[in-house]
């Protein structure tokens, strides 16, 4: 059931949610859109946040010998591409990593469906901008907020007016796809070539900063290590040399090997293993890459021509 809410209704919705959850929202601070605690709906910015809200689920670093615990948090203003990333990560790590699991089960994401494609974005290649799996999904058109909720959260929408057009999300998705088109994946998992020159070309420029991994809403890899405060896990980057290094050697000794691994994992291995590409077209990796390595090039490259 899709409901049609006014701006005041959105206030009331948030208040209802705030009875059970600590509410965070995307907020503009010094020109950056960041996630902060909010106390009213007017603080919420509908602009794309400067970084993915991944750290609500996977903390940048934490002690894994402590009891995995979570407070109930609601995050409003998340973009569909970020939220879809979390559903993709679920396929691999939900119910395995206790820290991710307890947070995932207790964080309510309220995503805003984009009405314009962000610069460089390509979410339409992955079914965006309207999600099929969501917690509470919002589409803001004109003065109306169209809201649909997953059965787990349907109760928050009780009392609001059902939308007269129950196809509004479907129509928006069609219109968005028509307007912005999509980059066809064309079976990228079969097209990519192991010995393509593309990987060496990327390696010529890449400075191993890890920004692509840190910004990505689908990258979940962590480094587990001991220090004087306990056993920690923290965000890791598969393009770093130490990622696969052992006393016996390194299966990916060159930067080009590791860059290839990142793209193979996203576009081939996850597809074969979980049936989904591990990318949502959010373009954050391109936005944050200091040398403009563009993941879209991996999709559009003509591997046969080489």
């Amino acid at each position, binding site marked *: 059931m899709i409901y049609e809410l006014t701006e005041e209704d959105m206030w009331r919705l948030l208040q209802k949610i705030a009875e059970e959850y600590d509410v965070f929202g995307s907020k503009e601070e010094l020109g950056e859109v960041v996630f902060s605690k909010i106390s009213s709906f007017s603080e919420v910015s509908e602009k794309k946040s400067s970084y993915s809200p991944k750290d609500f689920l996977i903390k940048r670093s934490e002690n*894994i*010998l*402590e*009891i*995995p*615990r*979570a*407070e*109930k948090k609601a995050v409003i203003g998340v973009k569909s591409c970020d939220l879809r990333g979390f559903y993709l990560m679920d396929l*691999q*790590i939900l119910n*395995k*990593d*206790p820290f*991710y*699991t*307890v947070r995932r*089960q*207790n964080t309510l994401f309220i995503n805003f469906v984009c009405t314009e494609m962000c610069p460089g974005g390509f979410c339409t290649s992955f079914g965006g901008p309207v999600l099929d799996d969501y917690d509470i999904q919002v589409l803001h058109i004109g003065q109306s907020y169209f809201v649909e909720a997953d059965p787990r959260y349907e109760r928050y929408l009780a009392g609001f007016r059902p939308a007269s057009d129950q196809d509004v999300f479907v129509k928006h998705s069609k219109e968005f796809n028509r307007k912005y088109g999509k980059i066809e994946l064309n079976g990228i998992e079969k097209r990519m070539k*192991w010995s393509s020159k593309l990987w060496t070309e990327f390696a010529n420029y890449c400075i191993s900063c890890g920004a692509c991994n840190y910004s990505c809403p689908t990258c*979940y*890899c*962590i*480094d*587990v*290590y*001991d*220090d*004087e405060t*306990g*056993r920690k*896990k923290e965000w*890791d980057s*598969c393009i770093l040399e130490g*990622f*696969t*290094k*052992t*006393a*016996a050697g390194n*299966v*990916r000794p060159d930067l080009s090997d590791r860059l290839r*691994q990142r793209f193979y*994992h996203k576009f*081939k*291995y*996850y597809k*074969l*293993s979980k049936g989904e590409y591990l990318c949502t077209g959010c373009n954050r990796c391109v936005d944050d890459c200091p040398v403009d390595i563009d993941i879209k090039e991996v999709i559009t490259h003509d591997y046969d021509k080489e």
Partner: protein
Amino acid sequence: MITIKNEYLPEKMKPIRFRMETDDTYTIVFSKRTMSHAGQFYMLSVDGVGESPISVASGFGNPLTFSIKAVGSVTKYIMDHRDSAIGLRGPYGNTWPWKGADHIVAIAGGIGIPPIKALIEDMESEGNLSDLTVLYGARSPKDIVYKNEIEAWKKELDFRITVDNGDPSWKGNVGVVTTLIPGVERFKNGSAFVIGPPIMMKFSVQELIKHGFSPENIYLSLERRMECGIGVCGHCNIGQWYVCESGPIFRYSDVMNEPEVFL
């Protein structure tokens, strides 16, 4: 505040026995009963040093045993501090698929032998040792692990051993372990389990196929950098698999087209 059980928490215990096998390899035994089957591994840890994935070297029901080569910070620490409490979590991974196979040729190179010891013990208690042939290749006589057990094994099953380089006292086979493969060609319709350094596995598989073994019946035990053991950290990824979850045992025909398989 909601909490959940923590898979990362190890069970801590001290080994009841410690034995040096070679200069840099040692065996530790715990009083805990082995709850795993041959092929599986545990994450062993020392607080403040780190964690390391180690294959189980004992069969189901026997005292939990590991045989470890001291190459990294954790494995070296345990060797130098024999009195330390060691964290254990597991068992993780899958098992050697020996049940139902006509005959098994298990080929172990170097430090690959511990999970084969587990296999021998599992087959002894739940199966038939006459269905097993073991080929073991060590670098040199002093690098042989399980020197005592091997004497008993030679009597109980078809256990063949070779060294890369001999010494004056060595009377047995000299040559890399692949030199023993022609001698087991008659088992080519059965299964082969291969474990050891990647280059040894690569040449062993080549030799097995040359002598008629089928890729669908050859199984490898792959090793990668592992940090969580539970399919979360991403370090052990090869192709569409995580070695800790879908492995460490892989059927060769499933992975033969992976360029990284023998790295």
